[in-house]
């Protein structure tokens, strides 16, 4: 215990002496999380620019379609395009995300009882925008089409009551559970903040241990060899404790901001999320420390921390589902701690899953922390016996 306490006090003194190191554990994480909250504060992008290519101008039907597109809050009609070349230029320069093409004689065809086909040329390279635009345009065209169909059926003498049932005998009612409004603030900001702290914590773990190597102070910190694994383990825990508490507190503050002030109610247990987050921070710090302890180089450890943690969000299954990945890629993704934390947070925050379901995740994160701390201790014990390797850059 005294070793742990001494190591903690030593780290505290070092942090007080280095403003930059302290900043990386306090206001930099807070600022970065505030930035993420700010990015997604709109929740859902509105008024995505599209253009109309109307080859059936002057008809009531095309004017009605234009009005309805204009009225859709997700869309904004920009200057119309007159031909294929203009449509292509507007799309290529990304001035608009999509072009709605109204075919010649649309109104006449519909009047004569034939069907007309409206084409939506959308920029699939920008998948998020393109799927939002598709959803809104589909809705507008569907509403317009249903109106025409009802008018026609009424003219044919179908009684009004029977109309609805006859039009679409089997309706599919789409219900998105757990993220009803498909709001990105809740979905992305809440998932990104732990991803950010995962990077920061792994960096901090590599930094605080690696700095002792770079500055050749490993002996001052751990004592002269031989030192047993137990004392090194205790010294390591003491060293990482401040960073663990500080980074956890920053992230909790950000998550509580979303849950309380932005009103994204937690369906399950916030305390359980808090516990898992503490373990995520701990396992990331331990992984960073292990990288430093095993490579005995601050620079290599930081590069490694970046390699493992920076893409963690991209591969965690929230953006692109794990079930769609190849077996090898999926194995890698499932070996990363953030993947498991992200699932737990979704289950607790959005789905309200029973606590017992995420118990194995909690246990595994805890176990991984101990294993990585042990690996770091073993690496440091070896490093302690090789003072000639200290100070490597």
């Amino acid at each position, binding site marked *: 215990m005294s070793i742990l306490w001494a190591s903690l006090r030593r780290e505290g003194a070092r942090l007080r002496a280095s403003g930059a190191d302290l900043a*990386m554990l306090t206001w930099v994480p807070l600022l970065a999380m505030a*930035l*993420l909250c*700010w*990015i997604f504060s709109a929740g859902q*992008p509105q008024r*995505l*620019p599209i253009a109309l290519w109307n080859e059936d101008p002057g008809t009531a039907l095309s004017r009605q379609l234009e009005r309805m597109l204009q009225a859709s809050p997700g869309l904004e009609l920009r200057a119309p395009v007159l031909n294929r070349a203009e449509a292509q230029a507007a*799309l*290529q*320069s*990304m001035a608009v*995300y999509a072009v709605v093409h109204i075919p010649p004689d649309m109104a006449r065809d519909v009047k004569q*009882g034939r069907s*007309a*086909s*409206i*084409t*939506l040329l959308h*920029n699939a*390279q920008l*998948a*998020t925008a393109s799927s939002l635009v598709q959803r809104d345009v589909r809705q507008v*065209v569907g509403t317009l*089409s249903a109106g*025409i169909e009802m008018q026609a*059926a009424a003219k044919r003498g179908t009684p009004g009551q*029977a109309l609805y*049932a*006859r039009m679409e*005998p089997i*309706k*599919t*009612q*789409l*219900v*998105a*559970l757990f*993220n009803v409004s498909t709001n990105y603030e809740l979905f992305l900001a809440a998932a990104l903040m732990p991803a*950010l702290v995962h*990077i920061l914590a792994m*960096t901090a773990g590599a*930094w605080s241990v*690696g700095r002792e190597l770079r500055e050749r102070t490993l002996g001052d910190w751990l004592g002269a060899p031989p030192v047993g694994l137990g004392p090194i383990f205790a010294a390591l825990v003491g060293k990482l404790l401040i960073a663990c508490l500080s980074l956890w507190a920053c992230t909790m503050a950000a998550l509580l901001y979303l849950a309380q002030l932005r009103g994204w109610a937690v369906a399950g247990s916030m305390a359980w999320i808090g516990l898992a987050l503490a373990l995520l921070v701990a396992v990331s710090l331990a992984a960073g420390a292990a990288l430093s302890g095993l490579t005995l180089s*601050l*620079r*290599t450890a*930081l590069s490694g*921390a*970046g390699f493992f943690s*920076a893409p963690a969000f*991209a*591969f965690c299954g929230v953006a*692109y*589902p794990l079930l*769609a*990945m190849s077996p090898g*890629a999926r194995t890698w993704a499932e070996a990363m701690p953030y993947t498991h934390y992200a699932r737990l947070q979704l289950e607790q925050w959005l*789905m309200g899953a029973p606590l017992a379901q995420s118990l194995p995740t909690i246990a595994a994160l805890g176990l991984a922390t101990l294993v990585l701390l042990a690996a770091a201790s073993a690496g440091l014990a070896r490093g302690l016996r090789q003072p000639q390797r200290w100070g490597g*850059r």
Partner: protein
Amino acid sequence: MAFLRLLLAQLRCLLSDKGAVLLLLGAPLLYGFFYPWFYATEVVQRVPVALVVQDSSALSRQLLRFAQASPRIDPQLVTADEDQARQALLRGEVMGYALIPSDFKRDLLRARNLTVPVYANGAYPLASKQVQYGFAEAFGTVSAGVELRRLQAGGQSALQASASRAPLQLQPLALFNPTEGYGSFVVSAVAILILQQTLLMGGALFVGTLREQGHAGGGVRLWLARLLALCLPGWLAGLFYMGWIFIWQGYPHGANPLGALAMLAVFVPAVAGCAALIGWALADRERALQVLLFTSLPLVFVAGFTWPAEGLPPALQWLRWLAPSTAGIQASLRLNQMGASVAQVAPLLAWLGGLTLAGWTAVLWLGRGSSAAARAR
């Protein structure tokens, strides 16, 4: 000629730094293979779903068959108990389920309005979309068949019936990324960010080391040579992505190759200038890694490809241009993937040129003192 010798000397100096080489050349090479690996399948198919069938008619069997035939979904659980499906959903075994209520066929024969609710796990948007579209398409096909038969029973011809069913139809046509692949969407843009981040870290590490060791001065010519030396690995990595990774992965590529070269020509120096400034400010070999590692996360979401710029707060819509990656990604997508002309991206290239000019001027001004003066300090 003397400048060429100076440049070669600086390049040798850069390449003899193992840490810098690892970041400038090793990291882009590694990420070029690593990043696309996770998205190699490109589309999410056969998402596991459940089907709750409480009706035992031929019609509900038909709905099940059509759902099984959909490439988007894979009904792994068919049950009469909704609770069972709900539990499977909570455990993550299925991503959604549809509920066919009892007396489904009887209500249909009475021409009532029937609704099949489809519950999808909105916590996973990409899978949820497939669940919704998969069920909607499968059931929509069955529904259309029923409707056509009714209209024909009412005396319309088959052709008339199909037209009066849906007088206006929407045909979505995916441009530039015709398969709508996820990797094509994400990696072709993220590649530019990888180029920026690796060059930033490698360059800042190199310059930070120089500053730390007191070799910071040296005059304008020396710093010009150093900046150019930093650009070379950046250009090389850029060519590797645009000329090999995009092609090898089958991403949309090469729509305007000369334009893409022009983009690289201004993007890399802009990043090199920022790298030198950051290295100068930090004056520490490893500090740049510590400070820059986490920045890739927010930079992805202000670049305007995965999150539409229209959704950003107004102030951020301006601030985001300070990072070269924003203009770089926007220009690269237009040139590599969409085939825009150089004239169409001229403002973006000019902006990158402006960033280069500002960054390089600042670096040359900072490093203008002679090396003797630097040593004296």
